[in-house]
């Protein structure tokens, strides 16, 4: 009984849903502030002391606004997609070790499940854009599905090449293997890190890959017809995905939550913040690609490089023994 209550607390409050939502707000503020400072301007300033409450105010404002469903929309899909998006985003983070060296949910092969959940999220994006039945929604949905074909395979392969080093398909095992070996895997697999970073940027739909939601081209794409509470949930889901992507990058490549002196949760936060900084810098420094360039680049560069990384790791294993 005690155990179940403790597990529920961990899943829902800390480090579960509530903590993750607050962390998502914090990282949204951090991203906006960093990008603003890079562009020589101020960023969020007025809400809270240094603007730190700005994402929370945005969420509350959106929840309070009018929620309009277009007459031609497919109602069951239109209303359930936002909730499913948040649910999948929170669920996939629970597989990453945060509070202790073992994740809340772990089993042998959970990396495959997490990657499948990523694909589910992209399918949710596609169905959300299609359910809105608007001109811009359908173009955005089609672009999201097309982009999926470009980045997904390199992402899987670069994540699995890390698992090759750890000898197991579980994120918890990768986390602990880096402590055993003593070196974070970014130093052992730099090529895999670069491929993972680029495909993560495409998965999180951030510039240069924010094509499904290109504001200046198709007015918000798949998000265009959503308003009020549904839009608030979608934006929350996007922010949670940033937390998830950064946490995955920190666990797979930077050494997880191992480190001297501080408790694991502190190391987790520090490394995830560094990962968010890298993602934000990448967002500020590039222009948006075109969808055909993403596909060409994905199949011409990312996938071969990821396969090359796997090949190198395998050869090194053969040689070293």
């Amino acid at each position, binding site marked *: 009984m005690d155990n179940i209550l403790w597990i529920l607390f961990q899943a829902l409050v800390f480090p579960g849903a509530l903590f993750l939502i607050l962390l998502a707000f914090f990282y949204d503020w951090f991203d906006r502030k*960093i990008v603003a400072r*890079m*562009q*020589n*301007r*101020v960023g969020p*300033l007025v809400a809270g002391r240094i603007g730190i409450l700005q994402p929370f105010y945005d969420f509350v404002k959106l929840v309070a606004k009018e929620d309009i469903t277009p007459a031609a929309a497919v109602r069951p899909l239109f209303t359930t997609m936002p909730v499913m998006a948040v649910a999948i985003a929170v669920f996939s983070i629970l597989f990453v070790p945060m509070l202790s060296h073992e994740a809340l949910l772990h089993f042998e092969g959970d990396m495959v499940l997490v990657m499948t959940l990523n694909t589910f999220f992209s399918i949710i994006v596609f169905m959300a854009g299609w359910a809105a039945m608007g001109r811009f929604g359908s173009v955005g949905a089609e672009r999201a599905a097309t982009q999926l074909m470009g980045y997904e395979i390199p992402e899987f392969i670069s994540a699995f090449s890390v698992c090759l080093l750890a000898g197991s398909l579980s994120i918890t095992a990768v986390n602990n293997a880096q402590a055993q070996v003593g070196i974070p895997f970014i130093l052992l697999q730099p090529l895999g890190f670069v491929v993972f970073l680029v495909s993560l940027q495409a998965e999180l739909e951030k510039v240069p890959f924010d094509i499904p939601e290109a504001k200046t081209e198709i007015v918000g794409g798949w998000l265009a017809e959503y308003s009020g509470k549904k839009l608030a949930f979608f934006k929350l889901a996007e922010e949670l995905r940033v937390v998830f992507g950064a946490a995955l990058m920190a666990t797979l490549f930077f050494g997880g939550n191992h480190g001297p002196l501080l408790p694991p949760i502190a190391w987790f936060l520090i490394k995830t913040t560094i990962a968010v900084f890298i993602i934000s*810098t990448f967002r500020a*420094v590039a222009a948006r690609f075109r969808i055909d360039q993403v596909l060409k680049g994905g199949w011409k560069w990312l996938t071969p490089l990821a396969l090359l990384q796997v090949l190198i790791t395998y050869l090194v294993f053969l040689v070293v023994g």
Partner: protein
Amino acid sequence: MLKELLGSLFKKPYTIKYPFSKEEVPLPKGFRGKLTVDYNKCIGCGMCARICPAEAIEMVPHGEKKRKPKFYLSRCTYCLFCADVCPVKAISPSDEYEMADYDKYSSDLVLEPPPVEEAPAEQVKEGEKK
């Protein structure tokens, strides 16, 4: 552009935090702000009302024989033709630029000639007569 972006992280932002720090806003000499009128210099020729492109100036009677201009600043385009054409240079721009208001004809946005002063002169005359 990466070097430039990372370098800006350590510099002060270029933004002037306007409503919170007004003294940082630089204003040059000759800035076209709100009009100020020196009604003592005005001779009531009416040239400003004739030339105003936006028809923002109306000549209103002042006393028994004179006319003075009344400025409706909500129509003004700040072209300063009135200042150029005034023969006694009674109109000039000031430094004030915060003129937003809820009412087009509020007292901030309408420059009226001052009321005519007659009472003191009358009293002296009465005293002298007596």
